[in-house]
């Protein structure tokens, strides 16, 4: 059951091999069995999942099933789910029951996908290791002493250990691609504006984008298609048609031009990771693609610019957590200021406070031009780098992260070294481009992801590339040993 693709699961449901209730129960059982090891879920919504599965079974029986009806999934715990705990991995929202559904949640509910639960994450999506969760670190299913990556670490680990067939995530600076790489699953962050941000708790509004995790590109294509689309409640959602992503998976790659940015292969890249990427590129050559050396000369400025833009937006976005209408309020505030200061001081974790303060400082009087405006100009340079590159090539490829999953605790005392691990992912968010991570091998027995960067709204092409690679290789089919056995 755990190695079945979404397509196979749909066939199983359609043929009556198993019902959605059985399928949902199967994954709920796996969560019960393994979540203590992984800490991938913050909440498990068993009752609702089974009720939705029952409804899906009726729909299937009535012959009204859609592409995903009856297939269970999980949401990163920053998508608001009506009536369900939505914590963002924070003490601030430890008891917050969202009073409405995010658009993505609404869409997947409408698609008939039972929600198994809400996955663990770095607090307010700030982090690259999932150690910044108030609900504890998530463990990497390939090695429980290692991090699964972040901030969507719970979703990545849950899919890697097959506690759910697919899961949603969000990516502000690499938070889908990096955990997908670390956990050996496929993950896609679409073009900014492709997936509605309504109901997705904001970290950095001009960078945040929802996306999908699955075992394969084919599974991601199905989930992403169901999540995508124009939403009039999100002013930054783009009104372009969503293609049938699955329909383009089998197009040939003959003559495709793949750009290789030299800046992604300079010092700092682990040699084991470099070797995996090299092998993957050989595979693409075999599939008929052409490899072209390109340059993204401002790559080194992406992290500095990101650590102005993202914290600046975050410092403002997170001001609503003030202990007035919802969320944590400190005990016995002595006055209004005390309520604000202590509710936020006690409700937010260290990394969140660090970023709020960074952003507050960057926007404060006298510094705006030197930091915020400068970062916006750098953002233009970075975006222009990609524009130039896409004149020469169809897609760009490289590593997702400079190394494989590191040990829990290894970097948690050094925020800067943690920040630097997002070197290859962050630039895309600044430009608003789509990117994905595809399992491409291992280094020191830990998974390595290949990054595919597409031009705006070219998710179909990226998924096509990933799928062709996955037809020729089986890295995406591998599951961590401790979680691979059927019960």
């Amino acid at each position, binding site marked *: 059951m755990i190695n079945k693709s979404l397509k196979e699961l749909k066939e199983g449901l359609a043929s009556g091999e198993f019902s959605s209730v059985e399928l949902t129960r199967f994954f709920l059982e796996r969560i019960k069995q393994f979540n203590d090891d992984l800490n991938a879920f913050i909440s498990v919504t068993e009752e609702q999942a089974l009720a939705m599965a029952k409804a899906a079974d009726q729909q299937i029986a009535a012959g009204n099933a859609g592409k995903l009806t009856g297939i269970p999934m999980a949401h990163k715990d920053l998508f608001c789910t009506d009536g369900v705990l939505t914590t963002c991995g924070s003490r601030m929202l430890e008891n917050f029951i969202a009073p409405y559904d995010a658009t993505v949640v609404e869409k997947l509910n409408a698609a008939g996908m039972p929600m198994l639960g809400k996955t663990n994450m770095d607090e307010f999506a700030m982090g690259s290791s999932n150690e910044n969760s108030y609900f504890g670190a998530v463990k990497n299913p390939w090695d429980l002493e290692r991090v699964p990556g972040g901030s969507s670490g719970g979703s990545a680990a849950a899919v890697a250990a097959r506690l759910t067939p697919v899961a949603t995530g969000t990516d502000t600076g690499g938070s889908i691609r990096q955990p997908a790489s670390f956990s050996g699953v496929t993950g896609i962050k679409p073009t900014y504006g492709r997936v509605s941000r309504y109901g997705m708790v904001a970290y950095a509004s001009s960078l945040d984008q929802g996306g999908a995790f699955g075992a394969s590109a084919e599974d991601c294509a199905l989930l992403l298609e169901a999540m995508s689309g124009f939403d009039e409640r999100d002013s930054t959602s*783009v009104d372009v048609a969503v293609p049938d992503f699955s329909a383009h998976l089998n197009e040939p790659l003959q003559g495709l031009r793949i750009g290789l940015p030299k800046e992604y292969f300079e010092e700092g890249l682990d040699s084991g990771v470099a070797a995996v990427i090299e092998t993957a590129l050989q595979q693409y050559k075999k599939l008929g693609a052409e490899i072209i050396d390109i340059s993204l000369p401002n790559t080194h*400025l992406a992290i*500095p610019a990101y650590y102005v833009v993202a914290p600046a937006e975050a410092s403002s976005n997170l001001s609503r957590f003030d202990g007035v209408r919802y969320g944590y309020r400190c005990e016995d505030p002595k006055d209004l200021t005390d309520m604000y200061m202590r509710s936020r001081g006690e409700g937010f974790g260290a990394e969140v406070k660090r970023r709020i303060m960074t952003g507050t400082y*960057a926007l404060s009087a006298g510094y705006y031009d030197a930091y915020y405006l400068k970062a916006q100009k750098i953002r233009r*340079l970075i975006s222009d780098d990609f524009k130039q590159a896409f004149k020469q090539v169809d897609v760009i490829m490289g590593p997702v992260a400079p190394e494989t999953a590191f040990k829990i605790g290894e970097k948690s005392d050094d925020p800067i070294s943690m920040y630097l691990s997002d070197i290859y992912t962050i630039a895309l968010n600044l430009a608003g481009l789509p990117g994905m991570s595809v399992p491409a091998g291992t280094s020191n027995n830990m998974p390595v992801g290949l990054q595919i960067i597409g031009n705006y709204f070219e998710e179909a092409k990226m998924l096509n590339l990933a799928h062709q690679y996955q037809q020729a290789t089986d890295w995406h089919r591998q599951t961590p040993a401790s979680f691979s056995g059927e019960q």
Partner: protein
Amino acid sequence: MSLTADEVKKIAYLARISIQEENIEQYSQDLSSIFGLVEQMNAAATDDIEPMAHPQHAMQRLRDDVVTETTDIEHREKLMSNAPARQDGLFLVPKVLD
């Protein structure tokens, strides 16, 4: 780039985040090293570059002036159910003086 204890306190107040006296030194170090990283931007010449506020080049979409939602008392209960303190349909906060 190095932030003084006073600057840290000022930022913490602007952001309404209480920090313990004994953590100020750590904050000052962390923020100083973050801004050390950030200031790598200074190496780039950007005089003629148009700032980019948003990845989209589109213009704001406008909605029609239509009341799409009504909040009756029952719905208000739901929307207020997460409030730490409330009474008579109001959110309660420590006394506001002005």
